[in-house]
């Protein structure tokens, strides 16, 4: 891949920037024209201003706490999720044993669990990571597993005629075939992981952006709350872009050049 961005991706970025600017402008205009009370909907200028005045708490403390929850939760989910998917793909009994629970994990009403989570983990980092894992384990396991199964059985047979060992089949056919599916799961997981960490913080925390936004709304500081939410959105977008970049880096691309 060349270092120069593809013209198409450059025009995409241009469109995106333009639409963001337009979005904030319209928001600002609506607030001013209709004189919306700032505790109902503050204009973006007020939110950015609050971001600046609260910068020390926001960037010095809470952003850092939430980021570490997200990164640790994501890392742990990838490791456990890929391990479970691998185990399920090599052994049918393991698949039968695990798969239902992977699905059941998605039906748990996390909010209802909050007392027990505080009981188990207190206000510690571990509790938030646990919630994040519950949130994103599923897309990672399911997508990785589907990807591993997607390897063409005829391709595997062809490798066998070449005298390939199981290990070689796994490395040369199954892993590369699973990567695109793994990455689409990871993209979903990366964006969900932010929500997971925030909900974890709502269940019980003394720091983090979710905690800070909730406290701000408790004090009717809508501008500070929106500042925090904007930051969370940036975080989600940044994670999504990072995983997209990894995807481009590690999976084959159908080239668009003639």
């Amino acid at each position, binding site marked *: 891949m060349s270092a120069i961005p593809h013209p198409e991706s450059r025009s995409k970025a241009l469109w995106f920037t333009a639409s963001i600017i337009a979005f904030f402008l319209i928001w600002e205009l609506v607030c001013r024209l209709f004189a919306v009370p700032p505790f109902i909907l503050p204009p973006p200028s007020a939110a950015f201003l609050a971001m600046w005045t609260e910068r020390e708490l926001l960037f010095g403390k809470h952003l850092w706490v939430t980021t570490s929850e997200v990164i640790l939760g994501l890392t742990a989910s990838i490791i456990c999720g890929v391990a479970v998917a691998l185990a399920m793909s090599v052994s049918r009994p393991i698949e039968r044993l695990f798969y239902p629970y992977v699905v059941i994990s998605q039906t748990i009403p996390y909010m209802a669990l909050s007392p027990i989570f505080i009981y188990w983990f207190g206000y510690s980092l571990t509790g938030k990571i646990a919630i994040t894992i519950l949130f994103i384990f599923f897309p990672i396991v399911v997508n990785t597993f589907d990807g591993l199964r997607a390897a*063409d059985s*005829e*391709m595997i*047979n*062809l*490798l*066998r*005629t*070449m*005298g*390939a060992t199981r290990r*070689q089949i796994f490395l*040369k*056919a199954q892993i*590369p075939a699973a*990567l695109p599916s793994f990455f689409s799961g990871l993209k979903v997981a990366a964006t969900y992981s932010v929500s997971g960490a925030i909900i974890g913080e709502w269940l019980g925390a003394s720091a983090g952006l979710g905690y800070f936004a909730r406290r701000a709304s408790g004090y009717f500081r809508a501008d500070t709350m929106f500042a925090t939410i904007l930051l969370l959105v940036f975080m989600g977008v940044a994670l999504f872009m990072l995983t997209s970049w990894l995807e481009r880096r590690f*999976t*084959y691309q*159908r*080239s668009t050049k003639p």
Partner: protein
Amino acid sequence: MSKLVFSQVDFSYGEQRILQDFHLTIRQGEFVSIIGPSGVGKSTLFQLASGLLEPTGGTISLDGDAVKPRLGRVGYMPQKDLLMPWRTVAENAALPLEIQGVPKKAALARVREELPRFGLAAYADATIDKLSGGMRQRVSLLRAILTGADLLLLDEPFSALDGITRMEMQEWLLDLWQKLGKTVILITHDLDEAALLADRVLVLQRMPIQQPVEIPVPFPHPRSAALRYEPSFTVIREQMWKLLKEREQGTAVLYGVSDQQPAGWKAGGTA
């Protein structure tokens, strides 16, 4: 010397019998075509030969040995090209060498030596989606050849190609076979192709496959594609056509009988 021998081979998928007391001997350096209607078991025959499947009865010996596993000793070009979209042309062709433990760099160097002969010199680093159908087939064939195996099994290699490309590829394959001196078995459903390339054609008429009917093609090599217009070639094609027709008439008679059964025969008669 016999390269591949099927003797008294039985094979079935569950209840469905594919081969029954089947005999076949392929000599070293021969080019043999196999022709037959689709679904008769041609690809299954290759899966047995390559070691992907084991016969339910009888023996298959490769290089005079019926015991040693056949996997890894035959160059198999499957019906679908099965190229890996995440690998380049050269990387795809290098696959069998990598499997044999050749270091990646050496494997790719070896591939690059071969690419010109396959008309792929300019495409070493191209991705698969840039290739035409004919080029994909050549990569797939190169990959089969690079297994180093002396026996090549080609399963309908040109069936997806247009007429002109197909004729070009046939001449090219014939030329390559003469230079390489390998043993080739080719499955096809094209009568001309079967006779043009091979020293003999095996006609598989119906399932289960028992003794195949064998038609020798006694034209000297090197042959050209123009051979197909010779009267003596036409005779051979006629022969094959008759054999395949015979099978159709056979089934037609069967249908004729069942058509005359009274209504409700099927429900009552097969229970």
